[in-house]
């Protein structure tokens, strides 16, 4: 690939790529994950947004020091070949787990709401196939798909109307009614609903306007944050604290509140449409994982993507009990927190080893 062709992501591509990789099943269950705080969870998304913006900065900074390289390459440059490769293997494994977690979560939801009488094996296979089809189109197709998915999904905000009508805005008061312990618990459980923006470290070399990338990524982050904010506000208005804690996919029940004269149940429509949002997230991760595999094996191979997909399928279908699987998935999500903080570590190393690396 020539360097001219490498840069394919325009302004909107970056915004929506960042925005849509952040929206997945996390948004559906955000109010439940924050329910430790009860009604006071309303402002949580805003704090998340601030944290995301702060953590975004070292990511963009370290990438802009190595303009043509993604994180895998930067790892190798800064930590030495073997150490870097070791870390990269871990990241790829972690991404595989994470995609498995995303898809498996969603498929469980689909199984319990839309297809209660079927096993999910075939549907998972179908989703994974579609996923490879998207990823094979390259990062630009993923970005464009994100844009389209966003445009198609944003009207769903209208479905929250009934929740707002029925809800009571006074629930959000008092605003800061929690202890610091509760706050950190909610932080730990809830932050994963906005994960996904860290992938910018992998597609950064493809961005045309790298200087403004931080700004564009931030716009994307804040679009998502405002969506999460709207969902938590409406959920708080509509539910009792008990419901917030026990209704797992609160957005689903918010959709259940509405009706049109020609469609009685909007929740099924909404939840099945959600597949496109899941696919955008999973596709971005899969693309990054494929790049990782390329960089570990130091060559490009189109079968890498099938290899990872097969691994994902294997993890989802793993013949272990659900508890272990769930623990595995949870672990993968917490590892993601490390990935978010990783660039800070890299930045420090970069500052120390600056001259050494440059001279190479």
């Amino acid at each position, binding site marked *: 690939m020539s360097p001219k062709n490498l840069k394919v992501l325009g302004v909107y591509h970056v915004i929506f790529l960042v925005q849509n990789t952040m929206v997945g099943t996390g948004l559906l269950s955000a109010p439940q994950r924050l329910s430790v705080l009860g009604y006071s969870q309303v402002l949580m998304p805003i704090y998340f947004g601030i944290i995301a913006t702060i953590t975004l900065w070292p990511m963009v900074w370290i990438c802009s020091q190595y303009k043509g390289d993604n994180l895998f390459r930067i790892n190798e440059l800064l930590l030495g070949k073997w150490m870097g490769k070791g870390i990269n293997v871990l990241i790829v494994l972690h991404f595989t787990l994470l995609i498995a977690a995303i898809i498996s979560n969603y498929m469980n939801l689909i199984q319990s709401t839309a297809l209660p009488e079927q096993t999910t094996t075939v549907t998972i296979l179908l989703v994974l196939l579609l996923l490879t089809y998207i990823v094979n189109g390259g990062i630009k197709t993923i970005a464009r798909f994100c844009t389209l998915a966003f445009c198609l999904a944003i009207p769903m905000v209208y479905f929250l109307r009934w929740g707002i009508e029925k809800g009571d805005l006074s629930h959000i008061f008092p605003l800061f009614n929690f202890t610091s312990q509760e706050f950190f618990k909610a932080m730990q459980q809830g932050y994963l609903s906005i994960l996904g923006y860290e992938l910018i470290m992998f597609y950064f070399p493809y961005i045309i306007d790298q200087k403004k990338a931080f700004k564009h990524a931030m716009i994307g982050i804040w679009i998502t944050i405002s969506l999460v904010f709207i969902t938590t506000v409406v959920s708080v208005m509509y*539910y009792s604290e008990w419901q917030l804690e026990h209704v797992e996919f609160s957005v689903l029940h918010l959709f259940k509140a509405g009706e049109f004269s020609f469609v009685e149940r909007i929740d099924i429509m909404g939840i099945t449409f959600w597949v496109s949002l899941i696919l955008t997230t999973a596709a971005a991760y899969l693309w990054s994982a494929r790049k990782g595999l390329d960089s570990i094996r130091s060559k490009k191979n189109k079968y890498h993507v099938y290899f990872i997909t097969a691994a994902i399928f294997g993890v989802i279908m793993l013949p272990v009990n659900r508890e272990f699987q769930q623990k595995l998935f949870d672990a993968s999500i917490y590892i993601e927190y490390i990935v978010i903080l990783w660039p800070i570590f890299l930045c420090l190393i970069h500052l120390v080893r600056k001259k050494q690396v440059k001279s190479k």
Partner: protein
Amino acid sequence: MKKSIILFVLTILLTGCSDKELKVPLEDIGMVSTLSFDYIDEEMMKLTVAIPQFSPEAKENTQLFSVTTDMISKGIVEIEMQSDKKIVLNQLRVVLFNEEFAKHGRMRKLIRHLYRDSSVGNKVLIAIVKENGEEVLKADYPDKPNVNLYINDLLQPSINTAFNPNTNIHDFIYTQTSTVHDSIVPIVDKKNGIIKIEEVAVFKGKEMIESIPHDEALIIQALQGRKNLAPLALDLGDGEEDKLVLDLISNKVKMKSNKNMEAPKLSITLKMEGTLVDYVGYRGGELESLEKITKLEEDIDKHTSKQVEEFLDKLKELEVDPIGLAEEFRKHYHGKWDKEKTNDIISKLQVDVKVETSIISTGNLK
């Protein structure tokens, strides 16, 4: 590209081979429209389901099945044994409980079961039957096409039954689990071949403790800020004839609490705007002048605020809060709020009610 298309087609073909459960087509599904629960004893209940019968050849337009069971799903399975169709709850519209059932506090568990079931919508309406739910469903309503549609339409929101809280599954779970609310559910009664909503059941915690008449239930709706209230019929006269009907156009409630947990005080301002549609009484014929109307407005204010106060006193005695008055205190309170605090507030509550009525027109005649 080529490969993925081939793979896609292969998967589709392979799904055809997979040994999955045969889907039941629509016409072989019995879609339960109304469920009714009758109390037998602490363990058991009588479950009646009503399924609309679509076949024009059938004589009855509703299929009814009753079983005695202790769990809903178990009951459904038993009913399936009697029925020629697969019984599903996807199109459930109304759930009926008899009064005894509600008084024993067993409603919450059953409704929570329905709330968890993803095939059941959240807008399933709940009502309490005075005597026996099964009888309501089994009774003959010669002028109604279908008992399912009849009950469903009856319980739907309508301007003339504005006192009806239209409690659905979500509302019930919400009020049951909310720390500041107590549930209210409409009560229906079968009388002389018709079903009628007349009263509203008030719950304290899980149990129904009281039924209140419809004009008091209307106060609950008014204080909750419902916009479209029924035409308000008032009898102002003490001895003298002084009756009127107000068609309410808008209704605004303002509540202000003193934020004091020890001596809670709440001032409620109720602003009503309406048209005078009917008047019988000593003022008759002289209502054209503005002063007279202002006088009438004042009388209405006095009368209504007294009514509201009386009703709130009644709630205070019962220590229940169907309106959610405690929310005014909760939202200023830091720390965990629970049901006891609500009860505590309600029992100590001092209320100051102010009603401001304005009659904006008296019709076209001068």
